[in-house]
């Protein structure tokens, strides 16, 4: 299938099973370059799984996923190529505790992109400044607060200069005060035109930056819409129920 240059991610008829459990059912999704998409849905609906399929942390069993023009198959070369184009930020940061913040950020550029060390460090400092923690560069992750850690994780991804960023509930492991720090960083990124897919329940964030909100339930995309309509005129019953719960809380 030919994909236009405008399309960053194209998922068609994708299905995935865990053993006999059908987690993702007939997913069709096209993400254009520069689009910022928020994925919401109840727990267990398959949001994380979908995100993880996109950089092949999980493999899908049928259908097609094309990222940046490269189809994801079990070909290792393609996988490597896609992974270095796609950055991912995890709920629990997953920083490397035995490396300093700076080393965390330079590791992949040096070993995967083969960037000279000096240059990688400059780049790392650049992105650390961007997430507003350049002064922490020589600390170890264990010495940082949760919010700072998550920002390091974002910087680490950015250092690979990916064209697409995936976020899997990046704020849900954080204390309330720290959520804002991280969301601000993400909003900044969004402003610069990064293509973003973000699983989150922060509806404020969705309203502020998303081009589109996708609602998933039981492995399917139930509804997608722009944020305003999504929150104010949800079409499906399921969405209404969900919105009433999270907004009421």
């Amino acid at each position: 299938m030919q994909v236009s240059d405008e399309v960053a991610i194209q998922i068609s008829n994708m299905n995935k099973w865990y053993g006999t459990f059908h987690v993702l059912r007939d997913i069709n999704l096209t993400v254009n370059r520069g689009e910022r998409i928020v994925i919401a849905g109840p727990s267990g609906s398959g949001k994380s799984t979908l995100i993880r399929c996109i950089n092949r942390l999980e493999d899908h069993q049928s259908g097609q996923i094309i990222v940046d023009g490269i189809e994801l198959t079990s070909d290792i070369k393609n996988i490597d190529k896609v992974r270095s184009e796609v950055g991912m930020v995890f709920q629990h940061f997953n920083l490397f505790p035995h490396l300093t913040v700076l080393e965390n950020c330079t590791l992949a550029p040096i070993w995967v992109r083969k960037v000279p060390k000096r240059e990688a460090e400059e780049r790392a400092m650049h992105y650390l400044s961007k997430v507003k923690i350049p002064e922490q560069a020589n600390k170890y992750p264990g010495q940082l607060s949760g919010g700072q850690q998550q920002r390091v994780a974002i910087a680490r991804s950015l250092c690979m200069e990916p064209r697409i960023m995936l976020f899997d509930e990046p704020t849900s492991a954080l204390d309330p005060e720290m959520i804002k720090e991280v969301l601000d960083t993400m909003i900044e990124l969004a402003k610069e035109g990064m293509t973003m897919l973000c699983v989150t329940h922060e509806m404020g964030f969705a309203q502020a930056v998303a081009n589109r909100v996708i609602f998933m339930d039981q492995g399917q995309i139930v509804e997608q819409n722009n944020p305003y309509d999504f929150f104010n005129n949800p079409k499906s019953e399921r969405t209404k129920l969900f919105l009433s719960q999270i907004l009421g809380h």
Partner: protein
Amino acid sequence: MIPPSPPPMRQAGAIKWLRENLFSGPLNTALSIIGIIIVWLLVQGILPWLSHSVWDAQNLRECRNIIAERFGAGAEGACWAMVRDRWSQFLFGFYPNALYWRATLAFALLFVALAPILFSESLKIRRIILIAAAAIGVLGIIFGHAPVWVVVATWFGAAVWLWAGEFAPTKLLWFTALYPALAYWLLWGGSAWDPIMALAGFLIGYIAWRLLAARSTLVAAIVAVVLAMLWWLYYSGDAARDAEDLISLSIPQVSSRYFGGFLLSTTIGVAAIAMSLPMGIILALARRSDMFLVRALAVTFIEFIRGVPLITLLFVASLLLNYFLPPGTNFDIILRVVIMVTIFAAAYMAEVIRGGLAALPKGQYEAADSLGLDYWKAQRLIILPQALKISIPGIVSTFIGVFKDTTLVVFVGLLDPLKGITDAVRASTDWKGIYWEPYIFVALIFFTFCFAMSRYSMYLERRLKRDNH
């Protein structure tokens, strides 16, 4: 606000302590009394014997005469004169007297080599270890009949390693990498070119890998290994000989049969642990692999080795290994023992490291994957550094076990410190009939080493628990 006040005094001092710690209830009182009786019996049994120690005698008969003379006829006493007479054999076996300094130096350098691996985290510990190593090295060299230039060089070396330990601990890693070759050369002697050429094999492999890695890491790895193998099998011997002819770097050779006592134990123990570590890592990775066949082979190997006593493996080394190798091959018994002990330790090491790998959260693997690191890079840069750190306590206890088990080599005819040397001493006319003293002496040395190591690993465990960064 009510100010804090001191707690009410109930009882004070020793009586309170006794009451709380020894006699706080009928059960505790009974236990305390039993404990006191046990201590009393032990002290009564051993103390007189110990207090009648004799340090200066030429042989057992003389020793007993002295005891009878000093403490009255029928008095029993310890005859430590034996230790004074034979301590060198317990430590070095039959290693030539004049070369003791080489063994001592190798031992002291061991700590320098270990410093960046085991002690890198804490400057204080590193200082203590390095200063102790420097002291051992310098003293051993002075009292070990070393030539003057070695003494000077060691002073200089000690200064350098103290400096490096202080300011550039990671630089010591280079020394760690070179240490095996250096230790081999110091202990066995001969031409320095042999170990140098053996090291060159690694260099060749590394160069090949660097040249090819850009194309395909798999191909590069295979080529590197093959080239290094070829070098070792066919060229390194000749190259060493030629180089030796050109510039001679020889020191007197000492053959394996002179090794004995703690020198033998330490040599076997350290060599086996050093080699079992990489082997254990590979086995552990294989056992966690998702490839069925690889996993099955690793499991079979590990469970087989762990399922049989070490002593039977030593039998294999001494009795069977020659059957398994091409007709006519025949190599040093120490080397064969080291191979078997290595295999044995590797199986245990694999389990320890597997524990460390399992303790790593899955997120670390995923993060590495999502950054685009391939399997080996992820293992080398992310997984193993962390897993090994978690495993250090386990590795240290494996080492303690292996070190203790080196006493079993006596069953294949090597002179281990415990039974080999002791029997040799007791077979001599001078010390025939001596019984407890050699055992106590050997036990003391083992205890010192092992206890220090176990404390160290406990310290590490505590530290790991504390800073979970």
